[in-house]
């Protein structure tokens, strides 16, 4: 049966990437001189698995490359090599290199081995150092212990000439060999597969019936083997598993010697295979013995052996050549297509489906005997079905959720490397790693997060000297936080560095033409400038952030996930970037609203309240901005019909509604014609079906089959500010002034 091994590649890559992560995290937590055996073992095991798997699945380059790393870890594990920062650094590089190799293999791209061979060279150097050299068992002569003679004399005697006529083999198992699961019969049968054999059972050690221990082996055999090309190696290989559990002798004989010495012919001579020796053993004297192999204790029995099979080194290792070439077939590259799901989640899902089936059959039953009186039952049944559906939906969504630690766990390494590179001393603190996030969102979040952390390291943090001069603690701190807020996940990157320099930003923005000279901007607006396209405040372009990618791209990426990016900063005490993301990209709880004759949907999480609009509460201030007074607050008003360019029907009969929405802790009131239902809607992409439209994040199909557009509240903030030719800070400022 030919098994196509490529079908296991995807699983192999998946677990190897996990293993690399284990190694990386482990290495990062392995201080020089450490003897944390647990940790060292974990790292070793991960390396070992990758090596083993790579060999098995045909990625020999990976397997060979991992070998040195594994060896080094093994030495550390045995305490023969102490953990040095040099070794850890090299192993971290090897982890990177492996990750790269594996990514290329996964995507079926050719690998550049330059880096790998460079790293391998370093490994060799490290391993050759005197402190490391000692342990390799191959170099230690077996010397002391005679019966576990470890290495030395290889096949010299056995395979010198291969065209011998035959072999005389003495095989006397230790009494307890059966307890290792090794069957003498199996071994004799295998010998029979090499050529013709004559087998003689030696019953010398067979005790009398009462003394027989059923679990022990009392028999010995002498086997004469004849064949064309029977090599000593092949025989050794057959005895490989039992060399310590039996006395074995292998002696070369000529055809003439092939006669069994008379004294050996104590009992049966059998031309073996095909049936177990049990059946041939019925005839000895103790024929009533129920046992397959009787025979007595060990004595020096067998004829003087010409060759003793000794070490494992003498044993040919099965060829590993077959799996050499990487098969360049299936296993698609790109984003990973499988997810690992906690079994509990699956169980919950099955439960829910069960309940749904019950409800459904209940409704079915009801429909058969439906009459006026059962109407209430129908209603409650449908309500039940709705509850089931929602639960099911939530639980299906949760299958896609993963803890954010998957996105965070690359940062300890990044910060460590950047510390070295930039000569800074920054500690990274993670909070809320268990916060769950949609897998797709998570995958797309990696790059923006990396950029922000790099940015904080490069621009935000000072060097230890600068910090001391500022009276700050020498060690800087970057915090990565994740938490839920409303229906959103919030991720913050906070540093306690030098903060944003407003004057510098403003000057730069003017020189870059991002803003006009003389423009008066609030602090928030100035800080927001760094998120605008084409902005860079670095005095010199370092190799970190000077990649031609600005923070505006980060912002765009996050916007593409329906999220937002904000920055707050205080000079000399640090900067915080805040990312807000929806829990999932697929479904939103929506408030249906009517604007003229169209239905729109506002995400429920953005709405803080809704009220009937009373004209008397509207005040128009300078710049044509309408402010609405709610309690003690004045909030700007946006007419959605105007914003979305509907034909305005004058003098509509119904009183209008004001929906107050929030974004970035600011509020505006949206004037709409009517509030309709609230419901969950499945988001369909506008880009995929039409094109991106400002102010809208997507569309959905309603129960009656019509299309409704989903509003992007953040966009509406920006658009309406543009509409008034004013920035919102001014609106807010004027609003607050007005209130005051």
């Amino acid at each position, binding site marked *: *049966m*030919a*098994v196509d*091994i490529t*079908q*296991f*590649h995807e*699983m*192999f890559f*998946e*677990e190897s990437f996990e293993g690399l992560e284990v190694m990386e995290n482990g290495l990062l937590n392995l201080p020089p001189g450490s003897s944390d055996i647990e940790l060292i073992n*974990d790292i*070793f*095991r991960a390396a*070992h*698995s990758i*090596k*083993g*798997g*790579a*060999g*098995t*699945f045909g990625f020999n380059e990976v*397997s060979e490359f991992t*070998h040195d790393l*594994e*060896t080094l870890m*093994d030495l550390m594990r045995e305490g023969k090599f102490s953990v040095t920062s040099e070794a850890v650094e090299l192993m971290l590089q090897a982890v990177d290199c492996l990750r790269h190799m594996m990514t290329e293999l996964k995507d079926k791209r050719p690998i550049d081995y330059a880096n790998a061979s460079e790293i391998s060279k370093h490994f060799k150097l490290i391993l050759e150092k005197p402190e490391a050299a000692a342990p390799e*068992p191959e170099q230690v002569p077996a010397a002391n212990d005679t019966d*576990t003679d470890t290495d030395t004399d290889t096949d010299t005697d056995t395979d010198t000439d291969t065209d011998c006529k035959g072999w005389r083999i003495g095989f006397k198992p230790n009494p307890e060999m*059966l*307890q*290792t*699961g*090794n*069957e003498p019969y*199996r071994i004799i049968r*295998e010998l029979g597969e090499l050529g013709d054999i004559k087998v003689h059972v030696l019953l010398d050690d067979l005790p009398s019936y009462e003394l027989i221990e059923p*679990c022990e082996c009392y028999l010995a055999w002498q086997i004469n083997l004849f064949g064309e090309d029977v090599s000593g190696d092949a025989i050794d290989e057959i005895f*490989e*598993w039992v060399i*310590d*559990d039996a006395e074995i002798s292998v002696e070369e004989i000529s055809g003439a010697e092939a006669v069994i010495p008379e004294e050996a012919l104590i009992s049966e001579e059998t031309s073996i295979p095909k049936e177990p020796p049990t059946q041939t053993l019925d005839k000895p004297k103790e024929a009533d013995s129920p046992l397959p192999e009787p025979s007595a204790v060990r004595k020096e029995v067998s004829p003087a052996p010409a060759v003793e099979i000794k070490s*494992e080194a003498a044993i040919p*290792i*099965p060829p*590993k050549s*077959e*799996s050499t070439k990487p098969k360049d077939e299936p296993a698609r590259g790109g984003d990973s297509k499988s997810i690992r799901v906690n079994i509990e989640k699956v169980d919950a899902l099955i439960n829910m489906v069960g309940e749904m089936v019950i409800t459904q059959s209940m409704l079915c039953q009801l429909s058969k005997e439906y009459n006026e009186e059962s109407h209430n039952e129908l209603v409650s049944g449908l309500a039940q079905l709705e509850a089931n559906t929602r639960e099911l939906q939530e639980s299906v969504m949760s299958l896609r959720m993963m803890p954010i630690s998957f996105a965070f766990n690359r940062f300890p390494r990044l910060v460590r490397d950047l510390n070295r590179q930039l000569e800074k001393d920054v500690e990274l603190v993670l909070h809320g790693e268990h916060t769950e996030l949609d897998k797709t969102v998570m995958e797309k979040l990696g790059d923006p997060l990396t950029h922000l952390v790099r940015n904080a390291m490069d621009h935000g943090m000072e060097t230890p000297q600068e910090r001391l001069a500022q009276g700050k603690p020498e060690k800087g701190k970057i915090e990565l936080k994740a938490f839920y807020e409303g229906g959103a996940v919030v991720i913050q990157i906070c540093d306690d560095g030098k903060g944003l320099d407003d004057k510098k930003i403003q000057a730069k923005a003017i020189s870059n033409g991002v803003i006009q000279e003389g423009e008066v901007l609030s602090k928030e607006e100035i800080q927001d400038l760094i998120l605008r396209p084409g902005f860079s405040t670095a005095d010199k372009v370092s190799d970190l952030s000077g990649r031609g990618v600005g923070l505006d791209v980060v912002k765009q990426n996050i916007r593409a996930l329906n999220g937002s990016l904000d920055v707050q900063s205080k000079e000399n005490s640090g900067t915080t970037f805040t990312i807000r993301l929806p829990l999932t990209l697929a479904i939103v709880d929506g408030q249906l609203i009517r604007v003229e004759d169209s239905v729109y949907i506002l995400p429920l999480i953005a709405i803080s309240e809704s009220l009937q609009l009373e004209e008397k509460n509207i005040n128009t201030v300078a710049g044509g901005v309408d402010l609405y007074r709610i309690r003690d607050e004045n909030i700007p008003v946006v007419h959605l019909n105007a914003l979305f360019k509907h034909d305005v029907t004058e003098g509509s009969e119904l009183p209008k509604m004001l929906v107050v929405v929030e974004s970035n802790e600011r509020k505006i009131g949206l004037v709409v014609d009517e509030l309709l239902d609230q419901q969950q809607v499945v988001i369909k992409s506008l880009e995929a079906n039409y094109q991106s439209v400002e102010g809208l994040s997507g569309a959905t199909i309603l129960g009656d089959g019509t299309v409704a557009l989903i509003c992007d509240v953040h966009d509406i903030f920006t658009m309406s500010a543009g509409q008034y030719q004013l920035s919102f800070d001014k609106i807010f400022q004027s609003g607050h002034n007005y209130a005051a």
Partner: protein
Amino acid sequence: MATILAVDDSASMRQMVSFTLQGAGHDVIEAEDGQIAYDLAQQHPDVDLVLSDVNMPNMDGISLIKALRGMDSYKFIPMLMLTTESTKDKKMEGRAAGATGWIVKPFNPDQLLATINKVIG
């Protein structure tokens, strides 16, 4: 056909081993470390062959084999270690613990089946 307890902490290895063995008509019980395998062994006294990786978290393959040999139903059945050639001492250690033999990693499905057929054939 035989019932085989296959133990390896690597999911891809388990997948490969199971797929190969099942393809040959065997029943496979999978375990991802020695402890889980030992617990499973209590529930399955009818296992004909144990295949175990050596390096595993919680309980390694050698401790597993030693523990299984202490159980009546596992006293004489073949138990093979799946091991890499780099761990020679492990082979000795495994043999001392009661392992029947070993299959050297890397191996391919054909080699696996050939060896298994030898011990349970």
